């Protein structure tokens, strides 16, 4: 089997969301002498990208994304002994994500957290109706690279702006990217309040986080 065929098999195994299939494909790729980094990058990660596309098109759903992410994690764990120390567990970046104070909407923000986590980011989801100071505290505590601010009501959008101002006041703004989202948020709003990006949906959140942090 050529390397390309092997990568396709690894990718298909991830898309099937079945851990057993992923582990079998990883074992086979390892036996064929493919370097672990390539197995991950060209096989497993490519499969996760495909899962993201299928999620966006409404063909796969959150549980499937999680199962695929779990299977990928198991596959990477299998390769850990062959890899340089820390390489396997390296995260793409640290993101604090939450819904701002006064807003109890949870589901969209949770989907974004899950998708970011599945894509390889270390995500600290601090929940909904989160006091604005908690975003600042959590960014400090985790040394986060990005903060995600969700608001689903026109009355709570202001919280996104306030967090950005608080980051500036505390001299933290330059070191932290800010992503905003939620039904009433728009690109124009993001520009107006000085956020680094606006994401229309969970898939776009992953794409933009990668653009900003990688």
């Amino acid at each position, binding site marked *: 089997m050529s390397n390309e065929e092997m990568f396709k098999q690894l990718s298909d195994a991830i898309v099937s969301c079945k851990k057993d299939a992923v582990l079998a494909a990883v074992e086979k790729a390892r036996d064929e002498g493919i370097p672990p980094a390539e197995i991950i990058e060209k096989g497993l990660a490519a499969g996760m990208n495909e899962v993201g596309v299928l999620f966006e098109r*409404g063909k796969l*759903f959150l*549980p499937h994304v*999680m199962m695929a992410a*779990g299977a990928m994690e198991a596959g990477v764990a299998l390769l850990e002994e062959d890899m340089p120390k820390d390489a396997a567990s390296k995260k793409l970046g640290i993101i604090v994500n939450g819904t701002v104070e006064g807003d109890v909407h949870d*589901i969209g923000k*949770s989907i974004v957290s899950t998708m970011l986590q599945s894509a390889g980011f270390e*995500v600290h989801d601090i929940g909904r109706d989160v006091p604005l100071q908690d975003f600042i505290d959590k960014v400090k505590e985790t040394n986060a690279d990005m903060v995600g601010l969700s608001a689903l009501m026109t009355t709570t959008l202001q919280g996104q702006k306030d967090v950005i101002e608080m980051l500036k006041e505390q001299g933290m703004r330059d070191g932290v990217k800010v992503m905003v989202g939620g039904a009433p948020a728009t690109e124009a709003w993001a520009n107006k309040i000085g956020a680094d990006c606006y994401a229309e949906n969970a898939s776009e959140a992953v794409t933009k986080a990668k653009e900003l942090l990688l």
Partner: protein
Amino acid sequence: MATEYKLRMGDGKRLFMTKEQIVADLKEGMADAADLGDIPDLSEDEIDKLVEIITMPSRMVGVEQGMEVPVTHDIGTIRIDGDQGNSGVGIPASRLVGAMMHERAFGADTMELGHIDYSYKPAKPVIAQEMQTMEVCQQNMIVPLLYGAMPNMGLYYTPDGPFENPGDLMKAFKIDEARESMEHSAKHLTRDIVWIMQRMMASGSDGVNFDTIGAAGDGDMYASLHAIESLRKQFPDIYIEAGMAGELLLGMHGELEYDGTVLAGLWPHQQAALVAKAGANVFGPVVNTNTSKSSAWNLGRAVTFIKQAVKDSTIPCHVNMGMGVGGIPMLETPTVDAVSRASKAMVEIAGVDGI
């Protein structure tokens, strides 16, 4: 220099486009819907008609004579006095006054009584007040008055409800537990909707409006369809309006089925059949507005989806038109130029039975 027409972005910002640019955006939006929903494109005549509607010089447009359709209002009773970020205008008025204003001054063909919290679950502890208000409204009104609220299954998850939050469970890779939590929540939601509507029907309600079905994903839809089915059996003459939350039914569970069909991933034209099968009288399809695209793109997309939903539905379709849906920009008070154009297009091209 080519003539430019005034349009809007999906976020409401003013935009100027040439006819060629409008056609290109209409076709791109249409192609997106056709691709995602695996449905046919609009015809060239329909694209021409859309261009004509978009480029009409009047600030506000209307349907051709003889093509008028019924308009149904959700949450209208509290739109007058509501002033908590819920698109109300903050004029002190009772719910009765709000309903009567819609009936007698604004031309609503049916109305809805809704509680300020606007979900079924919080209506339970105030059911006596809701029953009393329904009775008083019915004694003063002529148009059909429904009781309406959002199924909002999220209220059954922690911290608002008894079942562990599937979002938290999912993030911890506890997928089976998350699914169980959704299944339990769905049973409770069905039970609560039926319980509330038994009492509202006893108070003279003409029917029920399910507003934003599927907001919490496929479990929300599952619970709502079972509630519709149960209410139809108990009240053969009840008028049931089933309005959706979004264009795509999100698979939070992923494997729930109704009548042998997996609910996750259904688009409007596929949702219609299940809503009818469950026993609803009217289906309220939704197409979401993309705030980063022009109103031409959004309208081309929305009309393509809704036209197919109307075609496939065996019951009347009353399309959701408002803030951020139906090709209308995401503005708390959507502008009349965009609302009237999108509405005209839905009636004259998509063929909706009502709005």
